[in-house]
């Protein structure tokens, strides 16, 4: 195999050399004999440098969703994240989760449930000290989709002048949303194959629930139902299932160039 690669490289560089020779203008012929000699002897071609980096599928849970529950008690979110090392610095990444909302105050009650899925890539910017290192400082992009149903089982409109307390309800409505996420984050291997990661993300809604009279309060995976863009963060604990290594090939420049 390596021989074949070597041969093809040799053939290619040979072709290059002849092409260059043909291109050569009417150079001063008596420039130097040494230069001509250098042009004729083919430059020593080195093989591509090939090494392996650890690959695998990383499966994790987003524990920041449990912190969100403290600040926004009406929300219950469960979110999982996964990524797969596709190239040395490129990861195919996805998140999926479920969200349930239950809110009740003197004005209205609200219920919703839904699921979401995002898919995209992460690119690692970190220059590694050694090939086995798996720390990440990455930027990522995702496409997100959510499907949900929501309702207001009861609401009351108070009117001070007419003295009315008007009850009402909004029936169960199905809605979906599409958005794009831009991500910046870090991941660290704290134990063998165990990672913790922190990321911040900006989510930009492309299309959302159409009902203007009663939009959902929260969209699964996105956040606020009334905002066009949402800032969010994630804190994941994940385990990497090693699934073979990823081949990295570094083209080596021919010597003397």
């Amino acid at each position, binding site marked *: 195999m390596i021989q074949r690669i070597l041969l093809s490289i040799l053939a290619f560089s040979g072709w290059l050399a002849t092409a260059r020779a043909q291109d050569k203008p009417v150079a001063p012929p008596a420039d130097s004999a040494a230069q001509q000699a250098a042009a004729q002897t083919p430059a020593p071609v080195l093989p591509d440098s090939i090494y392996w980096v650890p690959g695998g599928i990383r499966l994790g849970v987003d524990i920041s969703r449990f912190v969100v529950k403290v*600040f*926004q008690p009406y929300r219950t979110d469960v979110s999982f994240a996964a990524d797969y090392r596709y190239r040395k610095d490129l990861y195919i990444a996805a998140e999926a989760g479920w969200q349930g909302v239950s809110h009740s105050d003197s004005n209205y009650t609200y219920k919703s449930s839904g699921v979401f899925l995002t898919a995209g890539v992460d690119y690692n910017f970190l220059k590694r000290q050694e090939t086995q290192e798996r720390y990440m400082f990455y930027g990522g992009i995702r496409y997100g989709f959510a499907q949900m149903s929501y309702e207001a089982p009861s609401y009351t409109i108070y009117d001070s002048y007419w003295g009315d307390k008007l009850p009402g309800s909004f029936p169960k409505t199905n809605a979906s949303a599409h958005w794009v996420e831009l991500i910046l984050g870090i991941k660290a291997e704290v134990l063998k194959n165990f990672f913790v990661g922190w990321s911040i993300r900006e989510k930009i809604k492309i299309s959302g629930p159409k009902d203007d009279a009663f939009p959902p309060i929260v969209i699964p995976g996105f956040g606020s139902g009334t905002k066009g863009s949402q800032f969010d963060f994630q804190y994941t604990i994940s385990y990497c299932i090693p699934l073979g290594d990823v081949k990295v090939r570094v083209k080596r420049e021919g010597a003397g160039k």
Partner: protein
Amino acid sequence: MKYFLILATLVSIAVVACDDETKVCDQALTTDTHIRFRRDSAGITRDTTMAQVTLYALGIRDSIYRKQAVKDIFLPLSPAADSCRFYLKVDSASTPDTLTFRYSREPHFISPGCGFSTFFTLDTVISTTNTVQSLIINQRAITSSINDTAHITLYFGI
């Protein structure tokens, strides 16, 4: 100090992202009908202030305005019926008028913190012509959004 700054940033990020939207109601819930007074005098129409405006809904009798000098009024339509009537007297010497409103109603979610309100769409507005000469509906949709355009303009001859 550096770590404190990083921590403070992270905490503020968390607080921004975790803002409980159901706690704060920072939007107007009132959907009042805005009526502006204008007067014809010598062929020129201009905004006018009426000296002693009294306004109440027939059947309620609680005054919304009681002998106040105002140039426009805000009145609440009944959220429980598709029509309502108001007594309007603009001056101590003038004959009172009755304004009749016919409209459709629609519940509208204002915000997670505020809950629901009623939005109206005006169908017909009729006034007796004792003191009021005529009226124009400028905007039929009555929502919680605040704008300077009056929904209705009332023209007076006096």
